[in-house]
């Protein structure tokens, strides 16, 4: 099978979908790996490294059976191929999905790989969220015009920074762990009841607030919450936010706009010099004032909406993504190395968006019909 590794089209994207080690694994099992020149440079993997791993590096790679990318990518980006595997954001851009279907390209979305115990090695959402959570905490620490840890020095006692993490999924938990490592006093909050124990298992405090038994959908995701819960949430969080030096928000609901957790009023009650880091910026942000990709200063409080967090640790993030991809391909290929997308096998079924020129993912179809 001819596998092409894309040079990422997005401007700030520094990651690469396959690292040289992954390329060599795939070559070893008989695939032809073709890498667009310069694809890995930004992540610290020079073209020579790919060549050393048995891949062909070329500026114009031509047609392929499978295109690998981090994403998101369009039909134009992938060119002539049978299958594309990337973060495709199918729910965010259903139109693009239809275009894949029309072009006869089977689209596999990394974000649709199920979040089960079994599939964890293919779970790129988790691996990239790990990087994002870690970088979010570091970003907060270096942007903050104060120390994170407590320091009792001859020049006075510096109290520890208070960090509040809203949304304790993979990224949130990693942010909690990293901020705790730096010595901050950390609390966390999530709508899912199971999150309390998980937050506390990292030595952080759980902020009392509404949790909804029903909030956890199958697969561990949170669902959307009703208006009443939202109101009680805001009340409960208002104090905690005002007391914090750093608020890191990571709350997401798959396929929906990010829940609005931090309002303008809440920001206004924060101390000057305080910081909000919004990891949900790409889906609209958990903070009312977030501008995706930019830093807003509101009455002395900075609201950062970074879009490139995993790219900030591009080397390891690509490494993990690449392993996820290789592991997934291991599941999707048969003994001869041909790709078999079997809609009944759980892993593939949930990853597939289009197949044989058809949209097979209900929610995308639904989204398109809504539009129409």
């Amino acid at each position, binding site marked *: 099978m001819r596998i092409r590794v894309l040079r990422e089209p997005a401007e700030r994207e520094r990651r690469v979908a396959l690292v040289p080690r992954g390329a060599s694994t795939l070559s070893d099992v008989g695939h032809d790996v073709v890498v667009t020149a310069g694809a890995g440079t930004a992540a610290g993997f020079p073209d020579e490294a790919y060549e050393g791993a048995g891949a062909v590096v070329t500026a114009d790679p031509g047609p392929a059976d499978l295109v690998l990318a981090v994403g998101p990518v369009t039909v134009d980006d992938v060119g002539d191929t049978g299958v594309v595997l990337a973060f495709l954001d199918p729910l965010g851009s259903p139109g693009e999905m239809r275009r894949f279907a029309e072009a006869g390209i089977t689209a596999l979305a990394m974000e649709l790989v199920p979040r*089960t*115990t*079994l599939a*964890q*090695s293919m779970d790129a959402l*988790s*691996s990239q969220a*790990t990087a994002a959570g870690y970088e979010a905490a570091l970003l907060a620490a270096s942007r903050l015009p104060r120390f994170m840890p407590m320091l009792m020095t001859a020049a006075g006692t510096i109290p520890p920074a208070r960090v509040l993490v809203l949304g304790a999924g*993979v990224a949130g*938990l*990693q942010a909690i*762990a990293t901020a*705790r*490592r730096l010595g901050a006093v950390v609390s966390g909050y999530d709508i899912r009841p199971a999150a309390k*124990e*998980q937050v*506390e*298992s*990292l*030595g952080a405090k759980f902020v009392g607030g509404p949790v909804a038994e029903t909030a956890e959908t199958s697969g561990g995701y949170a669902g959307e919450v009703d208006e009443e819960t939202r109101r009680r949430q805001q009340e409960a969080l208002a104090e905690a936010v005002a007391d914090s030096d750093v608020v890191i928000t990571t709350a997401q609901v798959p396929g929906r706009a990010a829940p609005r957790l931090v309002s303008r009023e809440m920001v206004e009650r924060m101390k000057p010099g305080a910081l909000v880091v919004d990891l949900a910026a790409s889906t609209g942000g958990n903070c009312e004032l977030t501008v995706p990709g930019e830093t807003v200063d509101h009455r002395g409080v900075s609201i950062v909406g970074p879009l490139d967090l995993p790219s900030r640790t591009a080397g390891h993030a690509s490494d993990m993504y690449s392993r996820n991809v290789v592991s997934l391909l291991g599941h999707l290929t048969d003994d001869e190395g041909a790709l078999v997308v079997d809609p009944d096998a759980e892993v593939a079924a949930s990853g597939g968006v289009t197949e044989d020129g058809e949209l097979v993912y209900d929610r995308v179809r639904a989204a398109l019909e809504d539009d129409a």
Partner: protein
Amino acid sequence: MSDAARDLVYLAAAAAFIIGLKRLGSPRTARSGNLIASTGMLVAVVVTLLDLEIIEWWALVAGLVVGGAVGVLLALRVQMTSMPQLVAAFNGFGGAASALVAGAEFIRLEQVELPVETILTMILSVVIGSITLTGSFVAFAKLQGLVSGSPVTYPGMRFVNGALAVGAVGLVVWAQATQEPLAFWLAGGSALLLGILVVNPIGGADMPVVIALLNSLSGLAAAMTGFVITNSALIISGALVGASGLILTKLMTEAMNRSLSNVLFGAFGGGDSGGGSAAETGDATSTSADDVAIALAYASRVVVVPGYGLAVAQAQHALRELMTELEARGVEVAYGIHPVAGRMPGHMNVLLAEADVPYDQLLDLDQTNNLLPRTDVVLVVGANDVVNPSARDDAASPIYGMPILEVDKAATVVVIKRSLSPGFAGIDNPLFYLDRTKMLFADAKKAMTDLVSALETV
């Protein structure tokens, strides 16, 4: 040989028993303690023979030869797993001996008018010895599976036992007051019956405690025999065993989280496979911190497999402390980290870094699985799914195909968690029911603290 010299030798033998018994209480000295005690026994028997005016030879020689042969045979042939029942049988023989000596003395002195205290101790010796005899053999039969190990009860059981006990006491009083042979032998007979009836309702799982108690009784019987024949060696050793047996019984009930009256009169107990000192929960074998501490201390390699439970209990510091202590004792330790242990990528790393565990002790999946077959004890601390063998063995399992830490390849598996409840994946874990797996049911932090203090006494 003068009586005085003989008595001093008896005293020395008794001292050997005391020292031997003390040394039996600690793993490091136990073997030498047994040797010391047995030497004391040899000396006591030899000095008795030297001192004796022997009128009849045959009974002595025949008894020593037959008894010795049977003893050696049983001791060397019986399988390790049948130890508890063997001890029960030996104990029964000991009780029988005491009763027989007192009986022989009674017969011999039938025509002599005896002081009250002599008759009393004779009867007590016979009664206690007889209860020990039959009680021990019922225990033996239950453990050996000759009769059902489950508690056998019937309506009115307590009443019958009570009546029998009262009857036996009445017979003792009667015999003691009149030196009437009928009463004497009836008392002995009812004691034999009582032994059977009291032990029969008790379940197999509780048998070890019962044997310990019967052991204490057989000591008491020997002491009473000592009163009968006015022999201080018997009195001292008998009292020693009687008292230490009681303490041991108490220790054993404590280890099982039971009370003695509960064992004796509760008339309930686990299933019919009660072996060793381990209590049972379902089919999983539970164990105690003390036992785990010994296993750890005597291992040459220990691998820890931490999981989400370690994080929930925030037991990382205590775990580190335990491992440091083991390292100081020359045990090789390592931590086997499963990639998805915990609830976020790197969860275990966060915890163990906080506790300052050296990075080079952290092994990944493959390294750990290479090491496990050469590992004496693997300590699974609050992990579950990541050590679930059905991911490897059971194609029907929802996690079939996930790579796991194959802890079942290690010689002994100790799992520390609070219950048998499942982990994140919500599926049952066959690991818990393996023979080589011992469950230590406790909060992980508490378990670690207990293990550290238990280790100090090993």
